[in-house]
């Protein structure tokens, strides 16, 4: 497995955030970020990676496990990490907000679309 990097690394953007953050756009108006290209048996891909994975790659560590399996395992951990950033769902408040919004749609008829683009 080979990797190449570009620019400065943000230290530890949680993986779940990084997953929805396109590296290029993030770099365009924030700190320069990074692009990691993994080449493995002919398959290539570009992805945002969390720092632990990245440092492993940069220091030349060789995975014992399948790289894909490793990446998924760490991604799940980081999604759990994001889960701790926001408060737990308040089911009563969620139901209240959903009810408010649903009321605003009530009575609005759906009009079939006939225009062909």
């Amino acid at each position, binding site marked *: 497995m080979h990797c190449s990097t570009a620019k400065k690394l*943000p*230290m*530890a*953007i*949680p993986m*779940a*955030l990084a*997953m*929805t*953050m*396109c*590296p*290029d*756009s*993030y770099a*365009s*108006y*924030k*700190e320069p970020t990074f692009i990691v290209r993994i080449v493995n048996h002919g398959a290539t891909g570009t992805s945002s990676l969390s720092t632990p994975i990245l440092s492993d790659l940069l220091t030349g560590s060789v995975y014992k496990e399948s790289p894909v399996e490793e990446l998924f395992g760490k991604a799940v951990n980081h*999604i759990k*990490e*994001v*889960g*701790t*950033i*926001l*408060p*737990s*769902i*308040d089911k009563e*408040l*969620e139901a*209240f*907000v*959903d009810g*408010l*919004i649903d*009321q*605003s*749609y009530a009575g*609005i*008829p*759906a*009009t*079939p*679309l006939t225009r062909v683009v």
Partner: protein
Amino acid sequence: MVVDRWPPVYDADELKQVIRDLASSNDISKSFYSRRSSGKPFQGDIIELNTSLPMIWSDGQPAVHGTFQYWLVIGNTCDLHRNHEDVEFTQIVPIISIDSVLVNERYDQNDFLTYAYSRRFYLPSWESELDSSFSFADFLRPVTVHKNAIIDHASIKATMNQHSWLLLHSCLVRFLARDDGRFD
């Protein structure tokens, strides 16, 4: 104006603190948005675009369901800034304003600032005339939009600052990737 690059957020603890600071701000609308009316759109922008909401209705056919004035851009900024030949479309969600009379009996703004709900995203007022209402972006009704529709026909009303954008980002992740309970 979005001029300076945002500083990096180093870890989850810092991100938590950023979001807590935002939620406890005395003047949430001032700290939530930057004023910007021109330039390319960014993820998290509030745009004005009077148009109907298209969706596939219960009969399996395309339909429109209501007309909205304001929308939240949820499409990735990278895609928004790419050439149309590379990426032609992006995603927006409608913003629904609720009369404060319907809310104030049980909850107030501070309750919504907890973001302890997942399918809608509370947006503090971005214009003074909307102060009496509560606005929510509806994650359940995303719409695919041609980027030219935003560039040529929409006006940018507000841009999120770094903290509120991080909050939006976290909420989008939670909306799409939260535990579904199947293994409880």
